């Protein structure tokens, strides 16, 4: 056993449990890795339950049950019951296209605290096209109705990009109509599938500014009725986003096969050693695994970041973006205007925003296992 508390490292608040990579949708900006994990490699029920207990002991307060589509796991009810039983706040992140009212009722009875429903578009044509699933929009609307009927709190999540950036006001209206109390207007983050599809997704700078204006206006108008959280597109920003609120500072991510990552995309960084829940306890992984300690705090930072007054606001931005653009995971995030590569990032975004590309939909590499 290693000591539970390490001197300078705070305990994590949140855990993203990617229960599976199976999903009925094929969104071209999916945050899952391009190389998707198959069902045969997924952790079993018992292992997930152990991880949840360890997470609670470690100090995790909230858990996001995600995927892929988490309801593709037949043991989801049991997982929710266990997480809830150890006191963790459970948030189901779902596409809502294959969950019956009956199943949702069982999940609610198991202690589910909150539902986050993805909406790819504000109308059927857009949703069905982006998700790559005919009829998805209607199914989602029906699902939202069930969530409301059961009195579960609902958040809509809209990932924003070129094909739907003109629909922000419609997304907000839809949230009100469906009884959601919260909406996330989340501009696509260009990693994994979204990076692959960047030229098909990137909006123009004026579109982003207009989208932000609509959000600000609605936020003021709907104060107390609808919470509007937005994730800004940092390609056009002055400062980088404080990715994960700092590497290994607040949250961890467990993949379907049990790898524990500081963020979704961390596995794209070469040379990092990730530990797996099948070999190590979660506390040991959080405090001692090489990957979690690689970019913790401020010691790893290049001089430009270490001497910056925002070093503990931005936490150096995003390591995966530094890698993707600068070719070096420990470089200053090029989204920062101080980065020597900032102009290059901006030029790339502007070029992409004018490109005419079609989507590479999120799919398993051949042969695709068809499972629900």
């Amino acid at each position, binding site marked *: 056993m290693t000591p539970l508390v390490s001197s300078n490292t705070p305990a994590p*608040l949140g855990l993203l449990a990617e229960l599976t990579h199976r999903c009925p949708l094929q969104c071209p900006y999916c945050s899952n890795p391009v190389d998707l994990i198959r069902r045969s490699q997924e952790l079993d029920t018992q292992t997930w339950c152990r991880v949840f207990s360890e997470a609670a002991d470690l*100090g995790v*307060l909230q858990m996001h049950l995600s995927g892929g589509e988490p309801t593709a796991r037949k043991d989801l009810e049991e997982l929710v019951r266990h997480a809830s039983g150890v006191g963790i*706040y459970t948030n189901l992140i779902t596409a809502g296209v294959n969950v019956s009212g009956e199943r949702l009722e069982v999940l609610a009875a198991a202690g589910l605290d*909150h539902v986050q429903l993805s909406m790819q578009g504000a109308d059927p044509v857009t949703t069905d096209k982006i998700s790559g699933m005919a009829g998805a929009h209607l199914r989602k609307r029906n699902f939202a109705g069930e969530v409301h009927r059961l009195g579960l*709190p609902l958040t809509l999540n809209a990932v924003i990009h070129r094909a739907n950036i003109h629909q922000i006001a419609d997304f907000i209206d839809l949230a009100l109509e469906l009884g959601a109390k919260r909406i996330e207007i989340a501009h696509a983050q260009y990693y994994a599938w979204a990076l692959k599809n960047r030229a098909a997704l990137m909006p123009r700078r004026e579109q982003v500014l207009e989208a932000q204006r609509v959000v600000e206006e609605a936020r003021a108008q709907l104060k*107390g009725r609808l919470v509007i959280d937005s994730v800004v597109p940092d390609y056009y920003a002055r400062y980088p986003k404080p990715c994960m609120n700092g590497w290994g500072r607040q949250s961890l991510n467990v993949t379907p096969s049990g790898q524990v990552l500081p963020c979704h995309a961390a596995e794209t960084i070469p040379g990092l050693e990730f530990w797996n829940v099948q070999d190590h306890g979660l506390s040991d992984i959080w405090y001692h695994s090489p990957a979690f300690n690689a970019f913790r705090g401020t010691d790893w930072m290049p001089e430009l970041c270490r001497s910056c007054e925002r070093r503990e606001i931005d936490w150096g931005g995003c390591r995966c973006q530094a890698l993707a653009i600068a070719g070096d995971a420990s470089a200053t995030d090029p989204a920062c205007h101080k980065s020597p590569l900032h102009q290059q990032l901006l030029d790339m975004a502007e070029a992409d925003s004018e490109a005419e590309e079609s989507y590479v939909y999120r799919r398993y590499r051949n042969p695709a296992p068809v499972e629900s």
Partner: protein
Amino acid sequence: MTSDLHAGSTPRLAPGVRLREDAARGGWVLLGPERVLQPDPIAVEILKRVDGQRTLEAIVEGLAQDFTADPAQIEKDVRLFLTGLAEKGLLDWHHDPSR
């Protein structure tokens, strides 16, 4: 938030919001969708009395008694705190029509 907060209003935590002890860090936390709030000890005392049963009046009376403090000042603080939570979507209230 449906209307102004009156002495007879009964506040409650919004669905999906709960208060719990935080053994790992000490103190209490208020948990909601993508929200973790760490209320100070005074806020915790208020929140412990927000049970969907007690009216604002009853909450203020209880606090004034337990902490032997001026009810007018307490009411001011409690209103400010609860209204702030309502603006964040973490709390709402209803009025008993019989009152």
